[in-house]
């Protein structure tokens, strides 16, 4: 069953079409890569799913309903920007999230903090940029959501943490939940993806499974991306 469904989804900013006539359906239990060059509409799409933007045309349904309060309890979203207050300690944010989301598993968050060697008493402003990103991702992954929308989750962190994060996504796998990951680091995430969606100038130019791409073209998704988006 589809957890996310959109048809004819369009978003314009004045004369600019950021997203153009996008029709997609994402099933439960899938891990999907949303791939495209800078400015292809990836973040716009994820923002529409979270009602941070409203569509100019078309429909978007999450679990059968338009994005809103109800969908926010189902969706765990990692935005492209850090929105956490700098003065807070890591443990403050954990209790903040516990109060805010019914599905937040604080023990899971603590476990991940320990693995990534982040102290709970640390204040966010004393953390490096990459560590802040890790904290934010831990918060997002510690929820038992039905849809995870991760906007560039591994771009700012070191390769060891990257492997840990990808492993967390695998271990967290739930046949009732879907994960959408937008990123440029295709070769890193390719083995954990079921499907990929290529966005180009706001339009979907390809939707396929990773193994289909490899089977039919004899190349990796990463290589195909370089071919499709050759500058």
């Amino acid at each position, binding site marked *: 069953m589809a957890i996310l469904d959109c048809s004819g989804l369009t978003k314009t900013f004045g004369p600019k079409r950021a997203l153009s006539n996008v029709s997609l359906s994402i099933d439960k239990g899938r891990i999907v890569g949303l791939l495209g060059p800078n400015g292809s509409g990836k973040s716009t799409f994820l923002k529409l799913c979270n009602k941070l933007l409203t569509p100019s045309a078309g429909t978007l349904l999450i679990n059968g309903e338009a994005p809103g309060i109800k969908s926010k309890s189902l969706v765990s979203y990692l935005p492209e920007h850090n929105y956490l207050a700098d003065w807070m300690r890591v443990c403050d944010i954990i209790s903040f999230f516990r109060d805010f989301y019914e599905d937040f598993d604080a023990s899971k968050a603590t476990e991940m903090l320990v693995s990534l060697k982040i102290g709970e008493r640390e204040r966010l402003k004393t953390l490096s940029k990459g560590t802040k990103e890790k904290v934010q991702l831990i918060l997002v992954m510690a929820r038992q959501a039905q849809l995870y929308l991760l906007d560039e989750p591994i771009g700012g962190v070191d390769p060891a943490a990257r492997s840990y994060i990808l492993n967390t996504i695998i271990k967290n796998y739930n046949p009732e939940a879907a994960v959408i990951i937008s990123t440029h680091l295709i070769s890193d995430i390719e083995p954990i993806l079921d499907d990929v969606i290529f966005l180009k100038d706001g339009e979907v130019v390809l939707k396929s499974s990773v193994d289909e791409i490899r*089977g039919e073209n004899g*190349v990796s998704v990463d290589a195909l991306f370089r071919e499709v988006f050759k500058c």
Partner: protein
Amino acid sequence: MNWSFQTDRPIYLQLKEQITLLIISGQYPAGSRLPPVRDMAADAAVNPNTLQKALQELEREGLVYAQRTSGRFVTEDEKMIEQAKNQLAAEQIDRFIEKMAGIGFTVEETLALISKRVKE
């Protein structure tokens, strides 16, 4: 286990080959229970659905079997494992002979070279 994947072929096929190798080499002995899909997927750093697909293929070929409630097991049929072993050996030999032919050696010359090399 060191899993590694080439970029030019479907991942599930490569997983299937590597799991077969684990069975043939006895790391997953005949009749033994395979680790849960999620653990194997995490270990190989691959999508659990992809691993599932690889295991289903192995099931279809009979090298592993599923028991409804208790997971997946390696076949108890040692003959079948032996067969898989021989098949893999044949593939490796074919590939090697092909490569030697590419260098310019006939099968006889290759054989002579092998026995000479082994004696050294």
